[in-house]
Protein backbone atom coordinates (compact mmCIF):
# COMPACT_ATOMS: atom_id res chain seq x y z
CA UNK A 1 0.00 0.00 0.00
CA UNK A 2 2.68 2.48 1.07
CA UNK A 3 5.02 1.50 -1.77
CA UNK A 4 2.20 2.01 -4.22
CA UNK A 5 1.46 5.47 -2.82
CA UNK A 6 5.12 6.42 -2.84
CA UNK A 7 5.28 5.35 -6.48
CA UNK A 8 2.23 7.47 -7.22
CA UNK A 9 3.82 10.45 -5.49
CA UNK A 10 7.02 10.01 -7.50
CA UNK A 11 5.04 9.93 -10.74
CA UNK A 12 3.18 13.16 -9.92
CA UNK A 13 5.72 15.52 -8.37
CA UNK A 14 3.47 18.59 -8.76
CA UNK A 15 0.92 17.22 -6.25
CA UNK A 16 1.99 17.34 -2.58
CA UNK A 17 2.88 13.86 -1.36
CA UNK A 18 0.89 14.27 1.86
CA UNK A 19 -2.31 14.95 -0.07
CA UNK A 20 -1.80 11.93 -2.33
CA UNK A 21 -1.14 9.74 0.65
CA UNK A 22 -4.23 10.97 2.48
CA UNK A 23 -6.35 10.54 -0.65
CA UNK A 24 -5.00 7.03 -1.13
CA UNK A 25 -5.74 6.07 2.45
CA UNK A 26 -9.26 7.50 2.24
CA UNK A 27 -9.89 5.63 -1.01
CA UNK A 28 -8.63 2.36 0.48
CA UNK A 29 -10.69 3.02 3.62
CA UNK A 30 -13.85 3.59 1.59
CA UNK A 31 -13.11 0.43 -0.38
CA UNK A 32 -12.73 -1.54 2.86
CA UNK A 33 -16.01 -0.15 4.21
CA UNK A 34 -18.11 -0.86 1.12
CA UNK A 35 -16.51 -4.01 -0.23
CA UNK A 36 -15.59 -5.67 3.03
CA UNK A 37 -17.20 -4.38 6.23
CA UNK A 38 -20.79 -3.96 5.07
CA UNK A 39 -21.07 -7.33 3.24
CA UNK A 40 -19.23 -9.16 6.02
CA UNK A 41 -21.48 -7.64 8.69
CA UNK A 42 -24.55 -8.43 6.58
CA UNK A 43 -23.55 -11.97 5.70
CA UNK A 44 -22.61 -12.57 9.33
CA UNK A 45 -26.22 -11.82 10.27
CA UNK A 46 -27.40 -14.57 7.92
CA UNK A 47 -24.68 -17.01 9.02
CA UNK A 48 -25.50 -16.32 12.65
CA UNK A 49 -29.20 -16.99 12.18
CA UNK A 50 -28.49 -20.20 10.27
CA UNK A 51 -25.87 -21.47 12.73
CA UNK A 52 -28.08 -20.59 15.62
CA UNK A 53 -31.05 -22.35 14.05
CA UNK A 54 -28.99 -25.45 13.31
CA UNK A 55 -27.76 -25.67 16.91
CA UNK A 56 -31.30 -25.27 18.22
CA UNK A 57 -32.75 -27.78 15.71
CA UNK A 58 -34.63 -25.15 13.75
CA UNK A 59 -34.25 -24.24 10.09
CA UNK A 60 -33.64 -20.48 10.07
CA UNK A 61 -33.97 -18.12 7.11
CA UNK A 62 -33.83 -20.22 3.92
CA UNK A 63 -36.21 -18.53 1.47
CA UNK A 64 -34.34 -15.60 -0.11
CA UNK A 65 -31.73 -16.85 -2.54
CA UNK A 66 -29.84 -20.16 -2.27
CA UNK A 67 -30.18 -21.37 1.32
CA UNK A 68 -31.50 -17.94 2.29
CA UNK A 69 -28.14 -16.38 1.49
CA UNK A 70 -29.62 -13.12 0.22
CA UNK A 71 -31.64 -12.60 3.40
CA UNK A 72 -29.24 -9.89 4.59
CA UNK A 73 -29.77 -7.83 1.41
CA UNK A 74 -33.54 -8.18 1.75
CA UNK A 75 -33.39 -7.11 5.39
CA UNK A 76 -31.16 -4.15 4.59
CA UNK A 77 -33.45 -3.01 1.78
CA UNK A 78 -36.53 -3.44 3.95
CA UNK A 79 -35.04 -1.36 6.75
CA UNK A 80 -33.86 1.36 4.37
CA UNK A 81 -37.39 1.73 3.00
CA UNK A 82 -39.02 1.79 6.43
CA UNK A 83 -40.21 5.00 8.02
CA UNK A 84 -37.61 6.64 10.24
CA UNK A 85 -39.76 7.05 13.34
CA UNK A 86 -38.55 9.61 15.88
CA UNK A 87 -40.72 9.48 19.01
CA UNK A 88 -41.94 12.82 20.31
CA UNK A 89 -40.37 12.67 23.76
CA UNK A 90 -36.82 11.87 22.66
CA UNK A 91 -33.93 14.30 22.68
CA UNK A 92 -33.86 14.58 18.92
CA UNK A 93 -30.29 15.65 18.00
CA UNK A 94 -28.67 13.06 20.25
CA UNK A 95 -31.19 10.40 19.24
CA UNK A 96 -30.27 10.96 15.59
CA UNK A 97 -26.50 11.06 16.10
CA UNK A 98 -26.15 8.04 18.42
CA UNK A 99 -26.29 5.23 15.79
CA UNK A 100 -23.70 7.02 13.67
CA UNK A 101 -21.29 7.26 16.62
CA UNK A 102 -21.66 3.54 17.27
CA UNK A 103 -20.98 2.68 13.63
CA UNK A 104 -18.13 5.21 13.42
CA UNK A 105 -16.50 3.65 16.48
CA UNK A 106 -16.47 0.15 15.05
CA UNK A 107 -15.57 1.14 11.48
CA UNK A 108 -12.68 3.27 12.76
CA UNK A 109 -11.21 0.15 14.36
CA UNK A 110 -10.68 -1.28 10.86
CA UNK A 111 -8.06 1.41 10.19
CA UNK A 112 -5.44 -0.57 12.08
CA UNK A 113 -6.69 -4.11 11.43
CA UNK A 114 -4.39 -5.90 8.98
CA UNK A 115 -5.85 -7.84 6.06
CA UNK A 116 -2.46 -8.97 4.80
CA UNK A 117 1.23 -8.12 4.67
CA UNK A 118 0.63 -4.95 2.67
CA UNK A 119 -3.14 -4.77 3.00
CA UNK A 120 -3.86 -2.37 5.84
CA UNK A 121 -5.39 1.09 5.74
CA UNK A 122 -2.72 2.58 8.02
CA UNK A 123 -0.04 0.69 9.92
CA UNK A 124 -0.14 2.92 13.00
CA UNK A 125 2.74 2.81 15.47
CA UNK A 126 0.17 2.63 18.25
CA UNK A 127 -2.13 0.27 16.32
CA UNK A 128 -3.50 -1.86 19.14
CA UNK A 129 -3.75 1.07 21.56
CA UNK A 130 -5.62 2.98 18.86
CA UNK A 131 -8.13 0.15 18.42
CA UNK A 132 -8.87 -0.11 22.14
CA UNK A 133 -9.12 3.68 22.37
CA UNK A 134 -11.31 4.38 19.35
CA UNK A 135 -13.88 1.79 20.36
CA UNK A 136 -14.78 4.09 23.29
CA UNK A 137 -16.85 5.97 20.73
CA UNK A 138 -19.16 2.94 20.71
CA UNK A 139 -19.77 3.30 24.45
CA UNK A 140 -20.51 7.00 24.09
CA UNK A 141 -22.92 6.25 21.24
CA UNK A 142 -24.72 3.57 23.24
CA UNK A 143 -24.99 5.82 26.30
CA UNK A 144 -26.29 8.60 24.07
CA UNK A 145 -28.89 6.29 22.54
CA UNK A 146 -29.98 5.05 25.95
CA UNK A 147 -30.29 8.49 27.47
CA UNK A 148 -31.83 10.37 24.54
CA UNK A 149 -34.56 7.75 24.05
CA UNK A 150 -36.20 9.00 27.28
CA UNK A 151 -37.37 5.50 28.08
CA UNK A 152 -36.60 3.40 31.13
CA UNK A 153 -35.64 0.30 29.17
CA UNK A 154 -33.29 2.26 26.94
CA UNK A 155 -31.77 4.04 29.90
CA UNK A 156 -31.16 0.81 31.82
CA UNK A 157 -29.68 -0.77 28.71
CA UNK A 158 -27.37 2.20 28.18
CA UNK A 159 -26.20 2.18 31.80
CA UNK A 160 -25.61 -1.57 31.77
CA UNK A 161 -23.65 -1.27 28.57
CA UNK A 162 -21.46 1.51 29.95
CA UNK A 163 -20.80 -0.38 33.19
CA UNK A 164 -19.90 -3.47 31.25
CA UNK A 165 -17.68 -1.88 28.64
CA UNK A 166 -15.69 0.35 30.99
CA UNK A 167 -15.18 -2.58 33.37
CA UNK A 168 -14.11 -5.09 30.75
CA UNK A 169 -11.85 -2.58 29.02
CA UNK A 170 -9.40 -3.03 31.91
CA UNK A 171 -8.83 -6.81 31.68
CA UNK A 172 -8.95 -6.49 27.88
CA UNK A 173 -6.11 -3.98 27.95
CA UNK A 174 -4.20 -6.07 30.49
CA UNK A 175 -4.45 -9.21 28.35
CA UNK A 176 -2.97 -7.29 25.42
CA UNK A 177 0.04 -6.27 27.58
CA UNK A 178 1.79 -9.68 27.46
CA UNK A 179 1.48 -9.73 23.66
CA UNK A 180 3.01 -6.27 23.48
CA UNK A 181 5.76 -7.38 25.86
CA UNK A 182 6.65 -10.37 23.70
CA UNK A 183 6.51 -8.59 20.35
CA UNK A 184 7.97 -5.30 21.59
CA UNK A 185 5.64 -3.12 19.54
CA UNK A 186 2.11 -1.74 19.56
CA UNK A 187 1.74 -1.85 15.79
CA UNK A 188 -0.60 -4.57 14.56
CA UNK A 189 1.71 -5.34 11.63
CA UNK A 190 4.68 -5.49 14.01
CA UNK A 191 2.84 -7.94 16.28
CA UNK A 192 2.03 -10.13 13.28
CA UNK A 193 5.61 -9.94 12.04
CA UNK A 194 6.83 -11.18 15.44
CA UNK A 195 5.00 -14.46 14.80
CA UNK A 196 5.34 -17.10 12.11
CA UNK A 197 2.90 -19.17 10.09
CA UNK A 198 3.47 -22.39 12.05
CA UNK A 199 1.25 -22.77 15.13
CA UNK A 200 4.15 -23.17 17.56
CA UNK A 201 5.45 -19.72 16.59
CA UNK A 202 2.16 -18.03 17.48
CA UNK A 203 2.02 -15.75 20.50
CA UNK A 204 -0.61 -17.89 22.22
CA UNK A 205 1.94 -20.69 22.55
CA UNK A 206 4.84 -18.44 23.62
CA UNK A 207 4.39 -19.31 27.30
CA UNK A 208 1.61 -20.67 29.54
CA UNK A 209 0.59 -17.18 30.66
CA UNK A 210 -0.05 -16.07 27.10
CA UNK A 211 -2.27 -19.08 26.51
CA UNK A 212 -4.39 -17.98 29.49
CA UNK A 213 -4.25 -14.40 28.26
CA UNK A 214 -5.61 -15.56 24.93
CA UNK A 215 -8.65 -17.16 26.59
CA UNK A 216 -9.21 -14.12 28.82
CA UNK A 217 -8.95 -11.84 25.80
CA UNK A 218 -11.67 -13.72 23.98
CA UNK A 219 -13.98 -13.58 27.03
CA UNK A 220 -13.38 -9.86 27.53
CA UNK A 221 -13.81 -9.15 23.83
CA UNK A 222 -17.18 -10.91 23.89
CA UNK A 223 -18.17 -8.75 26.86
CA UNK A 224 -16.99 -5.59 25.10
CA UNK A 225 -18.98 -6.53 22.03
CA UNK A 226 -22.14 -7.00 24.14
CA UNK A 227 -22.40 -10.62 23.04
CA UNK A 228 -24.13 -13.44 24.88
CA UNK A 229 -23.44 -14.46 27.66
CA UNK A 230 -22.73 -10.78 28.28
CA UNK A 231 -25.57 -9.24 26.26
CA UNK A 232 -27.25 -7.60 29.26
CA UNK A 233 -27.59 -4.17 27.59
CA UNK A 234 -30.15 -5.57 25.18
CA UNK A 235 -31.50 -8.49 27.15
CA UNK A 236 -34.77 -9.07 25.28
CA UNK A 237 -36.50 -10.83 28.14
CA UNK A 238 -35.77 -8.02 30.61
CA UNK A 239 -35.32 -4.77 28.73
CA UNK A 240 -37.33 -5.14 25.49
CA UNK A 241 -34.40 -4.21 23.24
CA UNK A 242 -32.29 -2.22 25.71
CA UNK A 243 -30.77 0.95 24.32
CA UNK A 244 -32.24 0.20 20.87
CA UNK A 245 -35.86 0.02 22.05
CA UNK A 246 -37.05 3.30 20.54
CA UNK A 247 -35.16 2.91 17.29
CA UNK A 248 -36.75 1.75 14.07
CA UNK A 249 -35.80 1.28 10.44
CA UNK A 250 -32.22 1.89 9.36
CA UNK A 251 -31.16 3.49 12.64
CA UNK A 252 -32.05 0.33 14.48
CA UNK A 253 -30.28 -1.76 11.85
CA UNK A 254 -27.12 0.34 12.26
CA UNK A 255 -26.80 -0.87 15.86
CA UNK A 256 -27.04 -4.48 14.72
CA UNK A 257 -24.67 -3.83 11.84
CA UNK A 258 -22.14 -2.57 14.36
CA UNK A 259 -22.67 -5.65 16.51
CA UNK A 260 -22.14 -8.11 13.66
CA UNK A 261 -19.27 -6.11 12.23
CA UNK A 262 -17.74 -5.95 15.69
CA UNK A 263 -17.71 -9.75 15.72
CA UNK A 264 -15.28 -9.69 12.83
CA UNK A 265 -13.15 -7.09 14.66
CA UNK A 266 -12.98 -9.44 17.67
CA UNK A 267 -12.02 -12.37 15.47
CA UNK A 268 -9.42 -10.39 13.56
CA UNK A 269 -7.89 -9.11 16.81
CA UNK A 270 -7.68 -12.61 18.28
CA UNK A 271 -6.09 -13.81 15.04
CA UNK A 272 -3.63 -10.92 14.87
CA UNK A 273 -2.61 -10.83 18.52
CA UNK A 274 -2.43 -14.53 19.32
CA UNK A 275 -2.70 -16.67 16.20
CA UNK A 276 -0.12 -15.36 13.76
CA UNK A 277 -2.42 -13.03 11.83
CA UNK A 278 -1.91 -13.23 8.08
CA UNK A 279 1.37 -15.17 8.25
CA UNK A 280 1.62 -17.81 5.51
CA UNK A 281 4.56 -19.97 4.43
CA UNK A 282 6.42 -18.31 1.55
CA UNK A 283 5.20 -20.76 -1.09
CA UNK A 284 5.47 -18.41 -4.07
CA UNK A 285 7.26 -15.25 -5.14
CA UNK A 286 4.19 -13.75 -6.77
CA UNK A 287 3.20 -10.85 -4.46
CA UNK A 288 -0.43 -10.85 -5.60
CA UNK A 289 -0.89 -14.55 -4.95
CA UNK A 290 0.85 -14.16 -1.59
CA UNK A 291 -1.43 -11.24 -0.65
CA UNK A 292 -4.53 -13.27 -1.56
CA UNK A 293 -3.29 -16.20 0.54
CA UNK A 294 -2.56 -13.85 3.47
CA UNK A 295 -5.99 -12.27 3.21
CA UNK A 296 -7.77 -15.63 3.27
CA UNK A 297 -5.56 -16.88 6.11
CA UNK A 298 -6.49 -14.06 8.47
CA UNK A 299 -10.08 -14.05 7.23
CA UNK A 300 -10.54 -17.75 8.00
CA UNK A 301 -8.84 -17.46 11.40
CA UNK A 302 -11.01 -14.45 12.27
CA UNK A 303 -14.16 -16.12 11.01
CA UNK A 304 -13.45 -19.21 13.06
CA UNK A 305 -13.69 -17.03 16.19
CA UNK A 306 -16.82 -15.36 14.82
CA UNK A 307 -18.26 -18.86 14.55
CA UNK A 308 -17.21 -19.69 18.13
CA UNK A 309 -18.94 -16.51 19.31
CA UNK A 310 -22.15 -17.62 17.56
CA UNK A 311 -21.79 -21.07 19.06
CA UNK A 312 -21.38 -19.56 22.55
CA UNK A 313 -24.41 -17.37 21.97
CA UNK A 314 -26.55 -20.32 20.99
CA UNK A 315 -25.51 -22.50 23.92
CA UNK A 316 -24.87 -20.36 27.00
CA UNK A 317 -27.48 -18.56 29.13
CA UNK A 318 -27.11 -14.88 29.95
CA UNK A 319 -25.40 -14.08 33.26
CA UNK A 320 -26.70 -11.63 35.86
CA UNK A 321 -25.27 -8.13 36.25
CA UNK A 322 -23.70 -8.87 39.67
CA UNK A 323 -22.12 -12.04 38.27
CA UNK A 324 -20.83 -9.97 35.37
CA UNK A 325 -19.13 -7.48 37.68
CA UNK A 326 -17.79 -10.18 40.00
CA UNK A 327 -16.34 -12.11 37.06
CA UNK A 328 -14.59 -9.01 35.80
CA UNK A 329 -13.18 -7.51 38.98
CA UNK A 330 -12.60 -10.59 41.13
CA UNK A 331 -11.33 -13.04 38.52
CA UNK A 332 -10.42 -11.53 35.15
CA UNK A 333 -8.50 -8.45 36.36
CA UNK A 334 -6.27 -10.31 38.87
CA UNK A 335 -5.67 -13.12 36.38
CA UNK A 336 -4.74 -10.65 33.66
CA UNK A 337 -2.34 -8.87 36.04
CA UNK A 338 -0.74 -12.19 36.98
CA UNK A 339 -0.37 -13.01 33.29
CA UNK A 340 1.47 -9.78 32.66
CA UNK A 341 3.84 -10.43 35.55
CA UNK A 342 4.26 -14.08 34.55
CA UNK A 343 5.09 -13.20 30.97
CA UNK A 344 7.65 -10.66 32.17
CA UNK A 345 9.27 -13.31 34.40
CA UNK A 346 9.23 -15.82 31.57
CA UNK A 347 10.94 -13.34 29.30
CA UNK A 348 13.64 -12.76 31.89
CA UNK A 349 14.17 -16.53 32.20
CA UNK A 350 14.06 -17.22 28.46
CA UNK A 351 14.87 -14.00 26.60
CA UNK A 352 14.71 -15.83 23.26
CA UNK A 353 11.62 -17.87 24.10
CA UNK A 354 11.74 -21.62 24.56
CA UNK A 355 10.96 -24.06 21.76
CA UNK A 356 10.30 -26.86 24.28
CA UNK A 357 7.65 -24.79 26.07
CA UNK A 358 6.07 -23.80 22.77
CA UNK A 359 5.81 -27.37 21.50
CA UNK A 360 4.57 -28.62 24.89
CA UNK A 361 1.81 -25.99 24.85
CA UNK A 362 0.78 -26.93 21.31
CA UNK A 363 0.61 -30.56 22.48
CA UNK A 364 -1.53 -29.60 25.49
CA UNK A 365 -3.99 -27.66 23.33
CA UNK A 366 -4.17 -30.48 20.78
CA UNK A 367 -4.85 -32.94 23.61
CA UNK A 368 -7.67 -30.75 24.93
CA UNK A 369 -9.21 -30.49 21.45
CA UNK A 370 -8.91 -34.27 21.03
CA UNK A 371 -10.66 -34.99 24.34
CA UNK A 372 -13.36 -32.46 23.51
CA UNK A 373 -13.92 -33.96 20.06
CA UNK A 374 -14.21 -37.46 21.55
CA UNK A 375 -16.76 -36.31 24.09
CA UNK A 376 -18.80 -34.59 21.39
CA UNK A 377 -18.70 -37.77 19.29
CA UNK A 378 -19.74 -39.86 22.28
CA UNK A 379 -22.71 -37.64 23.01
CA UNK A 380 -23.73 -37.38 19.38
CA UNK A 381 -23.72 -41.17 19.09
CA UNK A 382 -26.09 -41.44 22.06
CA UNK A 383 -28.32 -38.54 21.02
CA UNK A 384 -31.90 -39.21 20.00
CA UNK A 385 -32.86 -38.30 16.47
CA UNK A 386 -34.59 -34.92 16.34
CA UNK A 387 -36.14 -35.34 12.95
CA UNK A 388 -33.91 -32.68 11.47
CA UNK A 389 -30.92 -33.66 9.37
CA UNK A 390 -28.63 -36.49 10.32
CA UNK A 391 -27.94 -35.64 13.98
Amino acid at each position, binding site marked *: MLEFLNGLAAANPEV*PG*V*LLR*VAGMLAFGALVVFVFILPVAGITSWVERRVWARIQSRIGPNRVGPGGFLQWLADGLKNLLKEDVIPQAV*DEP*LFRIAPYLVVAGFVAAFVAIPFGGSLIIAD*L*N*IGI*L*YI*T*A*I*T*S*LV*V*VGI*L*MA*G*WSSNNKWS*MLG*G*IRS*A*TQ*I*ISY*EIPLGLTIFPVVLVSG*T*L*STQGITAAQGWAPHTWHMFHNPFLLVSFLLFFVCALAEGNRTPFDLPEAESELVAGFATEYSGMRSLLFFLAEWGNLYVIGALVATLFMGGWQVPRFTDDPTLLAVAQFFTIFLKAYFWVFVAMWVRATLPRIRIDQLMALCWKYLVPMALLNTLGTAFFMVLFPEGSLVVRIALVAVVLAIIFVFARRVRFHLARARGLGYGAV
Partner: protein
Amino acid sequence: MEGLSAEVVVFFFLAGVAVVGACGVAFATHIVYSALSLMLSFLGVAGLYVMLDADFVAGVQLLVYVGGVVVLTLFAVMLTQGIRDVKVSNRSAGRGFGLLTVVAVFALLWRSFQAAQWHRPVEYLAAESSTAAVGNALLGRYVLPFEVASLVLLAVLVGAVVLTRKETAESE
Protein backbone atom coordinates in the same frame (compact mmCIF):
# COMPACT_ATOMS: atom_id res chain seq x y z
CA MET B 1 5.75 25.52 3.22
CA GLU B 2 4.12 28.91 2.82
CA GLY B 3 0.44 29.74 2.62
CA LEU B 4 -2.42 27.30 2.84
CA SER B 5 -0.73 23.94 2.99
CA ALA B 6 -2.59 20.76 3.90
CA GLU B 7 -1.18 20.82 7.42
CA VAL B 8 -2.46 24.34 8.08
CA VAL B 9 -5.95 23.42 6.91
CA VAL B 10 -5.98 20.28 9.07
CA PHE B 11 -4.61 22.21 12.04
CA PHE B 12 -7.29 24.87 11.87
CA PHE B 13 -9.97 22.23 11.45
CA LEU B 14 -8.80 20.32 14.55
CA ALA B 15 -8.24 23.47 16.57
CA GLY B 16 -11.72 24.62 15.54
CA VAL B 17 -13.21 21.32 16.72
CA ALA B 18 -11.42 21.68 20.06
CA VAL B 19 -12.50 25.31 20.54
CA VAL B 20 -16.11 24.69 19.47
CA GLY B 21 -16.22 21.75 21.89
CA ALA B 22 -14.83 23.89 24.70
CA CYS B 23 -17.42 26.61 23.99
CA GLY B 24 -20.11 23.95 24.03
CA VAL B 25 -19.02 22.84 27.49
CA ALA B 26 -19.28 26.38 28.79
CA PHE B 27 -22.49 27.47 27.09
CA ALA B 28 -24.63 24.33 26.91
CA THR B 29 -27.64 24.55 29.21
CA HIS B 30 -27.88 20.82 29.66
CA ILE B 31 -25.19 18.86 31.45
CA VAL B 32 -25.35 15.94 28.97
CA TYR B 33 -24.68 18.32 26.11
CA SER B 34 -21.80 19.79 28.11
CA ALA B 35 -20.30 16.33 28.57
CA LEU B 36 -20.63 15.50 24.88
CA SER B 37 -19.08 18.84 23.89
CA LEU B 38 -16.24 17.96 26.21
CA MET B 39 -15.77 14.76 24.18
CA LEU B 40 -15.63 16.81 20.96
CA SER B 41 -13.00 19.03 22.53
CA PHE B 42 -10.94 16.02 23.64
CA LEU B 43 -11.15 14.52 20.15
CA GLY B 44 -9.88 17.77 18.65
CA VAL B 45 -6.97 17.84 21.08
CA ALA B 46 -6.18 14.20 20.27
CA GLY B 47 -6.03 15.20 16.61
CA LEU B 48 -3.62 18.03 17.47
CA TYR B 49 -1.39 15.53 19.30
CA VAL B 50 -1.32 13.39 16.15
CA MET B 51 -0.21 16.44 14.16
CA LEU B 52 2.62 16.93 16.64
CA ASP B 53 3.80 13.33 15.96
CA ALA B 54 2.85 12.44 19.54
CA ASP B 55 0.85 9.39 18.50
CA PHE B 56 1.14 7.62 21.84
CA VAL B 57 -0.13 10.65 23.73
CA ALA B 58 -3.01 10.93 21.25
CA GLY B 59 -3.97 7.31 21.84
CA VAL B 60 -3.84 7.72 25.59
CA GLN B 61 -5.84 10.95 25.29
CA LEU B 62 -8.59 9.01 23.50
CA LEU B 63 -8.41 6.08 25.90
CA VAL B 64 -8.37 8.06 29.14
CA TYR B 65 -10.40 11.17 28.34
CA VAL B 66 -12.97 9.92 25.84
CA GLY B 67 -13.18 6.34 27.06
CA GLY B 68 -12.80 7.15 30.75
CA VAL B 69 -13.64 10.70 31.76
CA VAL B 70 -16.51 11.40 29.34
CA VAL B 71 -18.07 7.96 29.75
CA LEU B 72 -17.88 8.17 33.55
CA THR B 73 -19.35 11.69 33.49
CA LEU B 74 -22.25 10.53 31.33
CA PHE B 75 -22.62 7.50 33.54
CA ALA B 76 -22.85 9.63 36.68
CA VAL B 77 -25.32 12.00 35.02
CA MET B 78 -27.55 9.12 34.01
CA LEU B 79 -27.50 7.53 37.44
CA THR B 80 -28.50 10.81 39.06
CA GLN B 81 -32.24 11.11 39.27
CA GLY B 82 -34.04 14.17 38.02
CA ILE B 83 -30.97 15.77 36.48
CA ARG B 84 -33.07 16.37 33.40
CA ASP B 85 -35.11 18.96 35.26
CA VAL B 86 -32.16 20.99 36.48
CA LYS B 87 -32.33 24.39 34.85
CA VAL B 88 -29.24 26.47 35.15
CA SER B 89 -30.70 29.86 36.02
CA ASN B 90 -27.70 31.49 37.68
CA ARG B 91 -25.45 31.55 34.64
CA SER B 92 -24.13 34.98 35.46
CA ALA B 93 -23.18 34.12 39.04
CA GLY B 94 -19.59 34.63 40.18
CA ARG B 95 -18.68 37.10 37.45
CA GLY B 96 -15.91 38.79 39.41
CA PHE B 97 -14.22 35.54 40.26
CA GLY B 98 -14.65 34.32 36.70
CA LEU B 99 -13.06 37.44 35.31
CA LEU B 100 -10.14 37.01 37.70
CA THR B 101 -9.65 33.40 36.53
CA VAL B 102 -9.80 34.41 32.89
CA VAL B 103 -7.22 37.16 33.39
CA ALA B 104 -4.92 34.84 35.34
CA VAL B 105 -5.14 32.06 32.73
CA PHE B 106 -4.67 34.53 29.91
CA ALA B 107 -1.55 35.96 31.58
CA LEU B 108 -0.15 32.45 31.99
CA LEU B 109 -0.88 31.58 28.36
CA TRP B 110 0.66 34.85 27.17
CA ARG B 111 3.83 34.11 29.11
CA SER B 112 3.99 30.64 27.58
CA PHE B 113 3.53 32.16 24.11
CA GLN B 114 6.39 34.54 24.81
CA ALA B 115 8.66 31.85 26.14
CA ALA B 116 7.98 29.30 23.38
CA GLN B 117 10.44 28.91 20.54
CA TRP B 118 8.43 29.36 17.38
CA HIS B 119 9.65 28.92 13.81
CA ARG B 120 11.41 25.68 14.44
CA PRO B 121 12.75 23.89 11.40
CA VAL B 122 10.25 21.28 10.31
CA GLU B 123 11.60 17.78 10.68
CA TYR B 124 9.51 14.82 9.77
CA LEU B 125 9.83 12.20 12.47
CA ALA B 126 6.59 10.42 11.66
CA ALA B 127 8.26 7.07 10.94
CA GLU B 128 9.73 7.04 14.46
CA SER B 129 7.44 5.70 17.18
CA SER B 130 7.13 7.90 20.23
CA THR B 131 6.13 4.91 22.37
CA ALA B 132 9.69 3.75 23.01
CA ALA B 133 10.84 7.27 23.86
CA VAL B 134 7.94 7.77 26.28
CA GLY B 135 8.62 4.40 27.91
CA ASN B 136 12.32 5.06 28.32
CA ALA B 137 11.69 8.51 29.75
CA LEU B 138 9.08 7.23 32.22
CA LEU B 139 11.25 4.39 33.52
CA GLY B 140 14.54 6.27 33.25
CA ARG B 141 14.79 9.96 33.86
CA TYR B 142 11.31 10.48 35.29
CA VAL B 143 10.98 7.27 37.27
CA LEU B 144 10.47 9.05 40.60
CA PRO B 145 7.64 11.39 39.49
CA PHE B 146 6.10 8.43 37.67
CA GLU B 147 6.08 6.29 40.81
CA VAL B 148 4.83 9.18 42.94
CA ALA B 149 1.99 9.71 40.47
CA SER B 150 1.01 6.07 40.74
CA LEU B 151 1.12 6.38 44.54
CA VAL B 152 -1.23 9.37 44.32
CA LEU B 153 -3.57 7.36 42.11
CA LEU B 154 -3.51 4.49 44.59
CA ALA B 155 -4.35 6.92 47.41
CA VAL B 156 -7.26 8.24 45.34
CA LEU B 157 -8.52 4.70 44.75
CA VAL B 158 -8.33 3.81 48.43
CA GLY B 159 -10.00 7.12 49.31
CA ALA B 160 -12.84 6.44 46.89
CA VAL B 161 -13.39 2.98 48.36
CA VAL B 162 -13.35 4.35 51.92
CA LEU B 163 -15.86 7.10 51.06
CA THR B 164 -18.33 4.83 49.32
CA ARG B 165 -18.07 2.15 52.01
CA LYS B 166 -18.85 4.65 54.74
CA GLU B 167 -21.95 5.76 52.92
CA THR B 168 -23.38 2.25 52.62
CA ALA B 169 -22.59 1.52 56.27
CA GLU B 170 -24.54 4.58 57.38
CA SER B 171 -27.54 3.87 55.23
CA GLU B 172 -27.94 0.36 56.53
